[in-house]
């Protein structure tokens, strides 16, 4: 390493977390550069409102800044923890303010979308990009009605009953679709993790 400041690009998740725990704003900036786009996208997906999504993204990063000790590696990876913070906070906001997003977006990332292929589009980490590709392709392979039910459950935090109401479908049909969607995804992802150790 030449003399001069350490290069934050070299920081992995553990170092980012340690840096944030040490109140280093440069580590927080690097954390944002790694995961800010995903966190914002999750919030926007739930809230369908750019300024609310910005608010949630800020709250997520400030929460992490104040109490990064809430994160335990045992509970999962940093990226999924951050994304679920964004999802949960966004859904809380929906409920607290009784916001009804205009229409329900029920689509997932497009399996043929260009940002799947752009190496700089998602993350510097190749591993995460591959994981994202596998997941999107697995969701893409689900029938459209299962994708829709899964989307309403995850991104809108809807119960079976609420989904049935929103779609005008029988409760039993909704339950079956959601269960099948999750079972197929589980199989696809477990198969992939075997073939991509």
């Amino acid at each position, binding site marked *: 390493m030449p003399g001069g400041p350490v290069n934050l690009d070299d920081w992995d998740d553990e170092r980012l977390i340690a840096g944030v725990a040490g109140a280093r704003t440069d580590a927080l900036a690097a954390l944002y550069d790694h995961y*800010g786009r995903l966190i914002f996208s999750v919030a926007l997906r739930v809230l369908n409102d750019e300024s609310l999504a910005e608010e949630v993204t800020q709250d997520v990063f400030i929460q992490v800044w*104040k109490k990064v000790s809430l994160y335990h590696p045992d509970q999962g990876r940093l990226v999924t923890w951050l994304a679920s913070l964004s999802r949960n906070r966004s859904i809380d906001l929906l409920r607290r303010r009784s916001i009804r997003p205009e229409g329900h977006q029920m689509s997932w*990332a497009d399996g043929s979308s260009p940002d799947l292929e752009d190496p700089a589009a998602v993350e510097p980490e190749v591993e995460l990009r591959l994981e994202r590709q596998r*997941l999107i392709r697995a969701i893409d392979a689900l029938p459209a009605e299962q994708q829709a039910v899964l989307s309403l459950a995850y991104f809108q935090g809807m119960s079976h009953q609420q989904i049935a109401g929103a779609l005008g479908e029988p409760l039993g049909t909704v339950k079956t679709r959601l269960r099948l969607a*999750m079972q197929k995804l*589980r199989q696809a992802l477990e198969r992939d993790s075997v073939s991509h150790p």
Partner: protein
Amino acid sequence: MIGERHVLEMLPAYALGSLDAEEKSGVEEHLGECPACQRELEAYQAVAAQLPLAVPLQTPPPRLRQAILDRAGQVSPASRRSGARAGPRPALLQRLGRSLRAPAPAWALVGVALLAVVLLGFNLVLLRQVASPPASAFRVIQLAGTDSAPQASAWMVVSADGRSGTLIAQGLPALPPGQQYQLWLNRNGQRASGGVFSVDAAGYASEWVYTPVPLADFKQFGVTVEPQGGSPAPTGARVLAGGG
């Protein structure tokens, strides 16, 4: 009864939080006594945890990054510590200081390292590190206040694996807004930043130091006063120095 009726078909929806209250409590009751269903649930939770990665990506407005950093700058280190992460008590720090100023037998260094671990034990990184090596494997380097800050003293506790450490500083003057302390690390004449930090009203700070190259490679340590956020190279008064 266990085994009479598993809740397998409800677990995918439970992992997503989509069950109604009555179904949910039924599932939880069963999960409490059925390890098989618990394992199944974990598999579905792993799927649910991945779902946000499949969101269509959007680009946030460029101002968002700075807005977050500005807000973070307003959350002072003191208020960070007022939460679950309570800081060390001054009396303990004074004992720590006395033990180091006295001629230091090996046990004193072990004591310092142990005390540092106890005081800072809230941090997951250090917690994981202390789980295996004995405390005596820590290396402790004392930093002394310079003429610019004669009351200041600090200890650099380097972890057993040499990859990270903790700077504990006391007696540093609180800085005016817009300024922070910055730690510098030197090895073979090469300098790296160890990060910026602020002190609380009592002049105390504990700062995690984590560098891409092993911290143990650095032999000399210094702290200077820099503009908020730090500088690429030292510009302000040096307040602490140590190492060999």
